[in-house]
């Protein structure tokens, strides 16, 4: 198939960017979206031009590196729960024009072309997305019993690969789906209980320094490659409200 792609090109963080149009001819419908870009890049390099920079690693939807706005939709799969690397060219028609943009958010500055700095999400994790344990030999696995339904909900939340599509798609540039998934996956399990209140207060505080707020548009859920439900956002709100009502000042100081 023959396509026309308009790609955001930007040399560096500081440089001004703009769209550049390329023709992507003779692309196999069985190619993935990233493979289509690989083909375009090979041709660019043959001509001695600089290739289009984009992030990728696993190419099977588990690492969260890839990610771009494809025709105005994060990851471009329009509700099929796919990461950019899992999107195949058969989703497009011969002759299509495709607009490809980097994630856009204040917290996600463009590093180069389609690569953005998603470090803002790491800062949210650093604020509380962990549990404190004693190191040493592994504890007996059956010491702590977790009901199956709880395990499964925790796993649903833990499926988040931190790709940033939720932020990119949200009209408010909010990271609520990401943060709520991280808050919930630990907060649902017994190991996460000791730090549960502190965790949600801190992660939300850091999140709100960088990202927008939630209007329950539901856009994040629709593009999440792991199909994480916005119900986790409601759950995080509940945890946050409860923690801010019941946490005394003193408890917060001892961190």
């Amino acid at each position: 198939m023959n396509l026309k792609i308009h790609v955001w090109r930007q040399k560096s963080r500081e440089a001004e960017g703009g769209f550049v149009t390329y023709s992507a001819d003779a692309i196999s419908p069985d190619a993935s979206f990233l493979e289509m870009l690989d083909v375009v890049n090979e041709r660019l390099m043959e001509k001695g031009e600089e290739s289009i920079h984009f992030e990728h690693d696993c190419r099977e939807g588990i690492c969260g590196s890839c990610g771009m706005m494809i025709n105005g939709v994060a990851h471009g799969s329009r509700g099929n729960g796919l990461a950019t690397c899992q999107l195949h060219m058969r989703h497009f028609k011969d002759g299509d024009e495709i607009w490809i943009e980097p994630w856009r958010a204040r917290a996600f500055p463009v590093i180069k072309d389609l690569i953005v700095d998603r470090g803002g999400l790491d800062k949210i994790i650093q604020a509380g997305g962990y549990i404190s344990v004693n190191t040493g030999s592994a504890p007996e696995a059956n010491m702590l019993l977790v009901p199956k339904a709880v395990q499964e909900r925790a796993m649903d939340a833990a499926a988040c690969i931190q790709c940033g599509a939720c932020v990119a798609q949200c009209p408010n540039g909010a990271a609520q789906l990401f943060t709520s998934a991280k808050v919930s996956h630990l907060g649902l399990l017994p190991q996460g209980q000791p730090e549960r209140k502190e965790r949600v207060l801190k992660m939300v505080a850091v999140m709100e320094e960088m990202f927008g707020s939630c209007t329950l548009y539901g856009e994040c859920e629709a593009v999440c490659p792991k199909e994480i439900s916005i119900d986790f956002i409601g759950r995080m709100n509940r945890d946050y409200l409860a923690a801010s009502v019941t946490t005394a000042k003193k408890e917060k100081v001892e961190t």
Partner: protein
Amino acid sequence: MSAAAAIREVNSKMTWAGNFYRSAIGKKAVMAATGVILFGWIFLHMVGNLKLYMGAVHLNEYAHWLRALGAPAMPETGALWLMRIFLLVCVVFHIHAAVMLTKMNREARPVGYRDRDYLAASYASRTMRWGGVIILLFVIYHLLHLTTGQAHPNFIQDDAYSNVVTGLRVWWVAAVYIIANLALGFHLYHGLWSMFASVGWVHPKYNSWRRTFATTFAVIITAGNLSFPLAVLTGIVR
């Protein structure tokens, strides 16, 4: 501010109420609480206005009853003023939170997309801000029109029925009422659904019930409110 500074701030700052309202999640909870109070009020307002269909005597009696509510324990219009002040406080918080959150959200995405598509966001959810502004402007006009009378050419003190009928008979006034109440309907359609998530009341078991609740009340309130200008325009109420 750095992330570490943000954490320190959580650790140190102020009373919990101040801290709570400073956070966006806290503001949304306040919007949900004030929103549901305004919703309760607007529902009763619509139901009360149905007395229009029972004739002038009934409607005016009701208007008078509202004014005298609480008497003689309270001065005439005392309870009414308490209610007005309470609603005004709710409106102020609701709008203040909306403005602050909108600002926060604009700042979170300084550069937009050339091309963006919506997959899930309803028309109602995307018009919360403009819808809110339309409602606010309408509330001001509505008070000047039917409460104080400055915006009403044939205003008669203490004759609510005649004021409604002579007021809404003018086609463009009726149009203003219809447009504003459609905007209110959309606002409620999203707000009455999202408020549950804002305060954390989500559960797979009740989620479909939330949607039904929001749709039902948005439709009832909108239908009731639209019926008044339409009834006057068509001469059903005169």
